[in-house]
């Protein structure tokens, strides 16, 4: 039977963590209670993108976009909206049109500059139902390739579209496929890199969770184009929902005869399986990933030979990232000119960014290449919370760099980001405000790379460790001006001599912060101060004697006995104020946490 309304509940990781599964169960209960269960279709869908306001529930056909939906709100949505047709305005977000109406969701600042190609089905279909994918042109692109195009034609079309690898490097996808096509062998492989290790990036996960079939279809197309019959998806084990949905999708595709010996009855054989990662960042590197699929330690090896000639089990292999694959069916269906019409000259199409950190609208955004950082942060992101000032944006994760406020009008594409000392990376975009210390951030990334370095080559294993130690020294106020020059020299050495991408890019966070925030490094070294108030060793806790009421709570909490009564009684107070002996203070912050009048103790 035909339902009169569809209720779409976000089942992405963000909203699931915010209890969206319980919300779904409650809808089930409330709809039954009101006798509406047969009239309404309940769908758990993929990520809508606006994670900061999750859990999200969208009701169609009228397009109401409910935010921060709690289990308690469900009864009201059902009785008011579904039963009586009155939308629950208080859950519809704060955006209003000029006439005071609730703004349609696609006109809100968060969505209006976005262009959803990769994420087109996220939040629109039920990812666990292959029929819904097929209903939105699913597997049509594969059919078109096999029926109407030669493998060379498919590769040429991709080359013409200008699609570049979305995993970070930005290598032209068509070129990559062509070299695998040219390699002669009886067995070739198609591999998907879903080992999204960049801390703060989650677009690949959202695609797998929200639209897994688009990746399967694109891998089938790759198989047809390069002449491979077997595919592997290498997924992080930390993404249980993505793994589960992808497995469901593969099983359904097999059951429909889409995957298998005679895929879709078109005479081409293709099958695939999932391989789970086990928590090693370096496995995002192509050769390391291949070794991990083979069941070994994920250590990179020297290139060349490239994967196109000598990949998985020594066979020619084509490896692309999830987001790259998710673009391909649309490019095949709409043509290279359509794709090229978006973005910049050398970076066509869109890019998905995971917007995080000090920003109002945390979440997933897909924008045409060439959109400025200002649009992303001020319009889509809704600006910085608590009236703080924008300081820097970090792209490219541990391999990227920090973009300072002065470059906020830079159009974002592959080449511009490299030119300003960062890189696209997989698409994490972390916003930082005045309370973030750039030396501390550089140290944070270095700690990550030191931890994740596989240890195979010396420049990365020892060089990054030394770099980390110098940064640590600086954050403790023991650095010298000479250290800054030494660090720059060491960075250049590590970049030039490391074996794989991890080492070659690891110094980028240090280099870019040294370039744009050198004054902050100098403040740490010369003035022994952390301007952002982050580096503990450089802070002193101070009690404002005119505000302190002398209750003594802090003195009792102080583990070092550094707080005593002073002999000063402020006007209007009965007891003498407390004071901190800086020579005894451990800077643990316990006093500040316990103070009844939080304004009385501060870090300076």
């Amino acid at each position, binding site marked *: 039977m035909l339902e009169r309304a569809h209720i779409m509940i976000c089942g992405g990781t963000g909203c699931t963590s915010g209890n969206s599964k319980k919300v779904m169960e409650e809808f089930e209960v409330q709809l039954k209670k009101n006798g509406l269960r047969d009239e309404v279709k309940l769908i758990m869908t993929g990520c809508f993108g606006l994670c900061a306001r999750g859990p999200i529930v969208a009701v169609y056909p009228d397009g109401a976009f409910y935010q921060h939906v709690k289990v308690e709100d469900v009864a009201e949505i059902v009785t008011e909206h579904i039963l009586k047709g009155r939308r629950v305005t208080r859950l519809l977000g704060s955006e209003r049109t000029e006439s005071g109406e609730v703004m349609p969701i696609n006109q809100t600042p968060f969505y209006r500059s976005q262009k959803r190609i990769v994420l087109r089905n996220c939040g629109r279909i039920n990812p666990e139902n292959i029929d819904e994918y097929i209903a939105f042109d699913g597997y049509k692109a594969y059919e078109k390739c096999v029926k109407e195009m030669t493998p060379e034609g498919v590769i040429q079309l991709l080359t013409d579209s200008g699609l570049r690898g979305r995993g970070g490097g930005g290598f032209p996808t068509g070129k990559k496929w062509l070299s695998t096509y040219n390699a002669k062998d009886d067995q070739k492989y198609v591999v998907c890199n879903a080992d999204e290790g960049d801390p703060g990036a989650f677009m690949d996960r959202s695609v797998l969770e929200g639209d897994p079939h688009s990746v399967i279809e694109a891998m089938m197309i790759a198989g047809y184009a390069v002449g491979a019959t077997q595919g592997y998806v290498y997924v992080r084990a930390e993404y249980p929902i993505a793994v589960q949905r992808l497995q469901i999708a593969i099983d359904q595709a097999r059951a429909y005869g889409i995957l298998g010996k005679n895929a879709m009855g078109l005479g081409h054989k293709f099958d695939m399986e999932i391989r789970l990662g086990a928590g090693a960042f370096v496995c995002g590197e192509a050769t390391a990933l291949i070794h991990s699929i083979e069941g070994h330690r994920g250590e990179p090896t020297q290139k060349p030979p490239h994967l196109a000639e000598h990949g998985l089990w020594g066979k020619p292999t084509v490896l692309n990232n999830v987001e790259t694959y998710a673009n391909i069916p649309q490019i095949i269906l709409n043509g290279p000119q359509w794709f090229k019409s978006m973005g910049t000259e050398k970076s066509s199409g869109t890019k998905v960014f995971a917007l995080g950190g000090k920003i109002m609208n945390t979440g997933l955004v897909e924008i045409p290449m060439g959109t400025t950082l200002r649009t992303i942060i001020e319009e889509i992101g809704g600006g910085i919370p608590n009236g703080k000032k924008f300081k820097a944006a970090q792209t490219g994760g541990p391999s990227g760099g920090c973009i300072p406020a002065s470059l906020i009008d830079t159009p974002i594409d592959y080449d511009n980001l490299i030119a300003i000392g960062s890189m696209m990376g997989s698409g994490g975009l972390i916003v930082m405000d005045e309370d973030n210390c750039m030396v501390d*951030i550089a140290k944070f990334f270095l700690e990550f790379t030191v931890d994740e370095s596989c240890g195979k080559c010396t420049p990365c294993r020892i060089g990054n460790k030394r770099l980390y130690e110098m940064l640590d020294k600086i954050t403790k106020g023991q650095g010298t001006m000479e250290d800054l020059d030494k660090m720059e020299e060491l960075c250049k050495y590590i970049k030039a001599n490391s074996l794989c991408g991890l080492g070659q890019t690891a110094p980028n966070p240090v280099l870019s912060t040294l370039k744009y925030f050198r004054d902050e490094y100098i403040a740490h070294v010369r003035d022994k101060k952390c301007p952002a108030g982050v580096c503990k060793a450089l802070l002193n806790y101070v009690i404002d004697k005119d505000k302190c009421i002398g209750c003594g709570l802090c003195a009792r909490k102080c583990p070092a006995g550094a707080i005593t009564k002073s002999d000063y009684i402020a006007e209007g107070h009965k007891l003498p104020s407390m004071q901190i002996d800086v020579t005894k203070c451990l800077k643990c912050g316990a006093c500040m946490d316990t103070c009844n009048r939080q304004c009385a103790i501060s870090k300076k």
Partner: protein
Amino acid sequence: MSYQFIDTPEQKKKLDKVFVELKGVPGSLMKAMQKAQDIYGYLPIEIMQRIATACNVPVEEVYGIATFYAQFNIEPMGKYKVGICLGTACYVKGSGVILDKIKERLHIEPGHTTEDMKFTLEATRCIGCCGLAPVMTINGEVHGNLKPEDLDTIFAKYGA
């Protein structure tokens, strides 16, 4: 810390079944280790030896893989696994401070388990709930938008 490895007949049967399933699958060593860890919770030397025999590789290779990847544990885990996300989004929103507070509370460093085998503390990589940053997970349950003062209530639920 000392502990004894206990192998129940059901666990043994499950693992044998895994070996049968994976026989002849290319590159199955890591898969076998992942399944074994699902069964036992960790990979004691006894199990690593059995995997080595079944997959026909030296036990050193199994050990090499187990220590390379963060996901494999060669020591038993506590009843509750506490993971603090140190992904960038969480870090810039103060998850480092939260980690310090938990270290003080449990008296352990990340990667270790409390003496009573109740809590294992882990500093995890991005778990992808950046919209809720900073986040912590306890046995998979996500606690988001954390403030240091929330910890009392959360840990009270788990008896600490």
